[in-house]
Each structure stands twice: as structure tokens, then as C-alpha cells.
């Protein structure tokens, strides 16, 4: 599995670690690379590619490696974008819609409660349908927006993978960025390209109290090796 390092990526180490802990082979792939070095799946990690001084991901989408990723996605290969990776996938039009400044215009770093809306994507096979999990999130531009037509398609074709949900008793606004329809993550119609804002790789170590995030990576590995989930 390839974890792409763009200039300004800053979550590649923990993403590699999470994949390896989940039992996968993973290597860093340079953004200048013209191919995927034989990887069966590509993960675009979090960070601030090129500083993200412009709209997040808007420069990274022009990186040389993106051509190979596009080709891989078109051939049905697995592509996962986390946080900045999700932003890049949207900017590259591998996923529809856009990630705008958070409502409130402040960076939002906090745990979020998410409902697994689909278990048949490349990385959610190790969850139960409708399961609610809590993992960290941290971004300034994570408010998902799309045209009414796209939103309708997402709902109709069941392309929403993760949604922010309220949990009983909590007095904290459950949708941290004002995303439309509480969307935290989506996939393409074929289900092989997935992007979301939360950071499962940051909660993949029992020493931190929970390793729930690891299941995204065990799910991905099982999918790649053809294990039914």
C-alpha cells in the first residue's frame, strides 16, 4: 500500500504505522513519482499540502503522482483520502463536492462521533452498519458542500460513508464544521475511492486508550486480499 507524501503532508508517519499495525505492507510514495510502484491501494494522508495557503488541496492536485492515482482509480483500484487527502481528492474531481472553511471560520480539533453509513466500501468492512464510533478530527476546511444535484445523488445512491451524529447527553455541537447533511465522508459510485475528514490513524494504538481507528485499515487490507468481510 502506498502512502503519498506531498510537500506539507504531516500525517504520513502515523498512517504508515496504522497500516503496518493492521498487518499491511506500506511504503511512502513521493509526490513526484510517475507511478504507484506496484501498490494495490493508495492512501493520501492528512496535512497541509504546499501549506494550503490557497484552497486546501488545490495545488497538490497538480502533483505528478496524481496522474497515476487517477489512472489507478479509473481502473477500480482502492484510493483513500484522509483529511487533506479528502480535500485533494475533491479538488482533483475524483470525488464530487468541495470542502469549505468551517462554519465559524475556526480550526476545529476535537473528537467527533460518526455513524458508519456503509460497510461495503474499501475500508469500512470491519464495522457494523450504523455503528457509532468516536475518533479525532482536526481541520480548518472541512465543511462539505456540493450542488443540490450532487447531494441528491449522494443520498440516492448511498454514497455517504460517514456522518456526524449526536450522542445522548453531550452538550457539544455534534457537527463540528457545519457540513451539509452532516457529511464527514463520501465515496464514488464504484465505491473504490473514499474520502473523509476524521483521522482514524490517530487512534490506532491501545496505549492511547482506544484503537478503534485501526478497523479502517484492517478493513482495507482484507478488501485488498479478497477476504470477505
Amino acid at each position: 500500500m502506498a502512502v503519498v507524501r506531498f510537500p506539507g503532508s504531516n500525517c504520513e508517519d502515523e498512517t504508515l504505522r496504522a497500516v503496518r499495525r493492521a498487518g499491511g505492507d506500506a511504503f511512502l510514495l513521493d509526490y513526484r513519482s510517475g507511478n504507484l510502484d506496484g501498490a494495490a491501494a493508495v492512501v493520501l494522508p492528512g496535512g497541509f499540502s504546499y501549506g494550503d495557503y490557497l484552497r486546501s488541496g488545490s495545488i497538490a492536485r497538480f502533483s505528478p503522482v496524481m496522474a497515476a492515482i487517477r489512472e489507478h482509480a479509473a481502473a477500480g483500484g482502492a484510493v483513500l483520502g484522509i483529511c487533506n487527502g479528502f480535500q485533494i481528492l475533491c479538488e482533483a474531481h475524483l470525488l464530487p463536492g468541495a470542502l469549505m472553511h468551517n462554519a465559524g471560520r475556526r480550526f476545529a480539533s476535537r473528537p467527533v462521533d460518526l455513524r458508519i453509513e456503509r460497510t461495503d466500501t474499501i475500508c469500512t468492512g470491519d464495522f457494523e452498519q450504523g455503528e457509532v464510533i468516536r475518533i479525532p478530527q482536526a481541520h480548518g476546511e472541512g465543511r462539505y458542500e456540493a450542488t443540490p444535484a450532487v447531494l441528491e445523488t449522494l443520498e440516492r445512491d448511498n454514497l455517504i460513508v460517514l456522518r456526524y451524529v449526536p450522542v445522548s447527553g453531550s452538550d457539544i455541537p455534534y457537527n463540528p464544521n457545519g457540513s451539509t447533511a452532516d457529511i464527514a465522508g463520501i465515496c464514488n459510485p464504484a465505491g473504490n475511492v473514499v474520502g473523509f475528514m476524521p483521522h482514524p490513524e490517530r487512534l490506532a494504538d491501545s496505549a492511547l486508550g482506544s484503537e478503534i481507528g485501526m478497523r479502517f485499515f484492517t478493513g482495507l487490507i482484507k478488501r485488498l486480499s479478497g477476504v470477505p468481510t
Partner: protein
Amino acid sequence: MTTIPVPEAFPGERPVTDDVVAEHKLNATEYEAILKLLGGRTPTLTELGIFSALWSEHCSYKHTKPILRQFPTEGAQVLQGPGENAGVLRLPDGWAVAFKIESHNHPSAVEPYQGAATGVGGILRDVFTMGARPVALLNSLRLGPLDEPRNRYLFSGIVKGVGDYGNCVGVPTLGGEVVFAPGYSGNPLVNAMAVGILRADELITARAHGVGNLLIAVGARTGRDGIHGASFASEDLTAASEARRPQVQVGDPFTEKMLLEASLELIRGEHIVAIQDMGAAGLTSSSAEMAARGGVGVELDTSAVPTRERGMTPYEIMLSESQERMLVVVEPHKVDDVIDICTRWELQSAVVGRITDDGLFRVVHDGRLVAAIPGQELVDGCPIYHPEAAESGAAVARRSAVPARKGPNPVDALKQLLDAPTIASKRWVFEQFDTTVRGRSVITPGGDAGVLRVEDTGFALAMTVDCNARHVLLDPYEGGKGVVAEAARNIACTGASPLGITDCLNFGNPERPEVFFQFREACRGISDACRAFDTPVTGGNVSLYNQSPTGAIDPTPTVGMIGLLEDVTSAVPSHFRAPGDAILLIGHTRGHLGGSAYWAEVLDTVAGSPPPIDLELERSLQQFLVAAASRRLMNSAHDLSDGGLAVALAECCIGGPWATTTFGATVDLNAHADTVSDEGWLFGEDGARALVSATPENVMALQQLGAQFGIPCHYLGLVGDVGGEIEATREQRKWSWSSTELRRIYHDALPRRIERPTGTGKD
């Protein structure tokens, strides 16, 4: 030494006159010393600029050196003490931790966003130039009251600046403190601390050596920003300071991230001899300090430095404080490797000088010699001052003053305290800081100390920054001890053993006797506490002249402390965990209210003697907490500080910032400290205390452990139901609060003042 060559003025440069000397903030004694050093010749303007930067308070410590020398700096755990870019302590298994705190107060006062952002950038560079990968950030922020619009503007800008920079570089913020007091109106404090991890054998120091080795500037181009920043930081803030805004540098965290990765590759691959950040006083201090530490000379060619605009003079290039630049010393045969690595990280690099054998600090531009100064004296030769120190009569009188009125009933008093911005939840602040990037965060902000797993080892670091400036103001010596004691309590509450400190000494104008008294006494207090706890001072920063037209700031010696938690899985959180757990108050309650938050926030009285700090008792408490954590006897532990027992109990019940539930509690204050007043029991701030929860079957073991360390463990009561009432009884009296109402007050105090301000005055 051979005869010193005579430099010539750079074309167009002003001649150095008395006025020009005064403009450079050099006094008559200092200028005399310069003339003597130069053999009687008048310096060129470039030379004068170089002297003014290195002989500023910020770089020379000319008012504080004799006091700073009294800090304990040695210990078995110290790998690198003061004098380098950052201090380094040994950890188990060949690991080490580099850490340092630094102020960026003056820039943040005039340009809060960039001032704060570049403060974070500078401290990160100090840590990664030791060969350490930055793994955590902390910050201490102090502002005037939020009912003033300007303070809200400064606060919002500073928080955003701190956040945006660290978030982009990808370093989690794991701790901090935010304090609001009138003394910081017009002179906010921004102290940033960085923590880095390295293998002990990868440590590199900023010591230039090897005659003929080359100097390479790496990173951003040099511009006209930040010229004279070090001098700016060494004068009082005045109405004219606003005009300094263009001198505040602009941060570029993306370049910083590239610089970080390139620097670690250069260091770990042994491509370079030495490295230093071009921080305060830029190229001047980095080159002069590295050369002086290595006992060599240096020649810089300013015409070879990549600049942002054409026509920059050597004076400007030497004094620019453009951010995200490094100076590295490289053996000639490795220059190509170094430039290749920099290019791969998309960084510019250029050879800008060489190491020489004559001990001179020379600057040439287009082949013309524009500066030639004896190098060692340039760095160490600034006259040292021993300012007069005398406590003011007003300060003495303040210690015996008491509040003019009686307090409200304790039920209301606690609500007022939880609503006080200094005590209230800082969730609004740290929600803007990435706290989990790198995937090593065990305890994130909102508790006593941050806890971070060290790579894939089984141990963790605990870290905190603390300073109760009100206590220091009222009694600088006891307050100074208290700062270290509070930091150590916070560390120990997580189960970690305190290892060492870095300090950021923020004071007013040292030329005022009452300010220098505060400085001297606070440092004496810090020294005594550090000796008692075996937590050496490994470095830090002095920020003086924090003085605006409204007066000096409260004396604020911020301490950043690192602790070692030997088993990462034994980390203890601050908040209650389960109904039915026993609540224990560890330590002696004497009801000391002098200097308390209760007097300050509820009775508007900053007066009295702060609680005296018993260092032995503090040490015993720390050892008790560490032992109790390693035996897994505690479910939570929280130190008692601002607001005393009542605030600590409320915080434990309110839960962590992201908790979905609160807990009630029932505590009985009878049969302990019976002579203490109700206010003293609830709100007194006696040191060496902590509030612990434990499953009932562990109470006996905790009490036995307490006896072993000479620390009382009073059983107070039980953790109550989810969302329940907090009830305290004493004799016939009973006070109760709704835990959910307290949570709302505690978490809404900052947002309501910032996002929904209601005019002026207290609301």
C-alpha cells in the same frame, strides 16, 4: 592575533554619530566598550547594527546573567544544559528529550497573529536544530480582561496565530495556560514551548569548528522584515510601538515544515558540523554565536545571501529577522550533498561564508570589508549590569491587605469562579490547536498535564506550563517556589516524575528597582524549588521591558516542565471516571486565602501573602502520586490550585472538555481541619494537595501509601450519578450545585465573552 583590518562604510551608509548610537539603544558605557574593542576606531553603521543586536538585552542577558547563573543546571538526567538552542534531558533506552520555552511578547502586542505564529516557528527551530523531531507544543498566553475590545482582538489573533502555525507544521499542542489580568492590558504575553525527541547519540550542538568549513544559509530568502526585532524586544512598549508593526516578521509554516525535514536529514545523515536558527538578530547572532562557542572566526559575504529584493545593504541583511532560515556549518566536500538535500525539500540554499582562524567576525559585501570585530568579545563583551533591587512600599502594604467586603454564599462564589476566564474551560482555545496529530497523544489539553507516548517505546512524557503570577506579584520568592511546585504537581498527577524545567522569565523594566527585586526573588524561589525537586533548569528565555504606558506586567516567570511516565498505560486522567468511586483529598488543608483566586475574582482583591510552599511536602506529594499511579491505585488525580478544593471538585465532576457526561459528588468536610473557615476550606489555595478518585477497595492501600510518604489522605465522599448534584456538607451547613449547570458555566465563559460580547464592564 594579527592586526585587525579596518572596514569601510558601505556606500550610502550614514556615518555613526551620537544620535545614531542612541537610536541603536546603546548607552555611553556600551559605546565606550565598543570603541575600546575596536582599538578606538569609530564603527561602521553595519558594525553598530551588529553590536546593537548582540548587546540587546534579548541576546546579551546583560541585566540578568548574574542571577541566571544561580539556577541549578546539573543532574544525572541532563544531557545538555543552558547555552544551546534548547536543553536536553536523558530518557530511558537511549532516547532524549529536547525542550525550550521562549517569549514572543512584543511582536504579539502590535501584530497578534503573526507575532504569535512566528513565536511558535522560532521555538520549533530551536528544538529541531538540536537534532530532535518536534513532537509537542505548549503555550502560556496572558491578556488583559476580555471586556476590552482590544484584548479580545489580541486574544483571538494570538490563538489563531499559535494554532495555524503548529497545525500546519504538524506538531500537536498538548498543554498550556491562559490567564486574564489587568496587568497584561497593552502588553500581552505569548510564551511558546516546544518538545522534541531524539536519540541521545544524535544530539548536535551549535558549535562551529573546522577552519575552512563553509557556512550555508538554508530556507527562506532574506527580506527587510524584522530588522531590529531583538532590540525592539528590549525596550518598553509605548504608543510609538504601533509603528513597529512592519518589523514584525511574517510566518510561513510550510517552509518551516520543509526546513524541519531537511534539517533532520542533514543532522541524522551527518552531513553538517553545526546548525543554528537565524532567530532573533538573524544572520548576526547565528553566525557570531556559533563561532564564539567553537572559538573560531567567521567571514560572511552578505552579497551571497539570497534576498527577497534587490539592493539590500549588508546592514539590512545582517539584521533581518526573516523567518524560516537556518545557518549550517559544512565541510567543503559535503557542500554538494547539503545543497542536494535542501533542493529535494524544495528549499533554497547558498554558501554565505566560511570559518576562519583569526577569531574575527568579518562581513564582506561585493568584496568590500564592511565589518571586522573581535568575535568572542562581540558575543560576551557587553557590559554586565547589577541593577538595584528594592521592594516597593506598595508591594509590602499589599501583602497585609484584606478584602473590604464579605464574600457571597459559597454556592454563588463557586459559580463566579468557574465563570472567571482565567479559571474557566479553555476549550475555545485548544479546539483551535491540533492536539492529536502524530498519533501519540495520550492525554490532550484540559487536564493537569499533557501526556505523550515516546515513539514505539513503553514510556511517555508528561508536560505542562505554569505560572501563578498573582502569587509572584504578592511575594516573588514564595510565588517563584510555587510556580515550580504547581508544575511538578501537575506532572505528578498524571503519574509522571518531574525531570527538569525550562523557564520564560517575563518581567517589566529591570532598571526599576521594584521590578528587579521581583526578578531576583522569583529566580531565587525557582532555584530553591528546582534544587528540592531535582528538576534542573536546562535553558529558557528572559523577556524584560514588558512595560506599557499603563505600567509593568505582573511578574510572570513561566515554567515549562517535563516529566517521565515509565509506563504509558498507567497515565492518570484528571477527571472523575465512575459513580461510586471514593474521593480522597491528599495533603493538609490550612485554609490559606491570601493571594487566592477567590479574593481576586470574587472579591476584586489582589492582596495578602500567597500560601507558603513547603518544598519537602511537595516532594512527598509528588512521590506519593507517582507511586500510586504505578500501582494503578487511582482512577483520577487533579491538583488543587486556583480556586482551591471547590474548583478542583467541580472540574473533576464536570469532566474533560469532550466528555458526554458529568458526575455528581457527595463530600463531607467534617472531621478534618475543623478550625478552618468555610471559605478557607472551599477556596483556600494551600500547596501540596491533590484530589484523587479511586475504586473503594483501593482506599486503604492509598492511605497506607500516604502514611509511608507522610501525606494525609482524607476520605471525603463518593462520586455521584451521571449528571447528578455536587453536594458538600460541613456541620449543619450544606451546599449543592448541579453538575450540568456548572459544566455549562465553565465551558461557556470564554465563548460568551468572545463571540457574544455585551458592551463593557463586568457582565
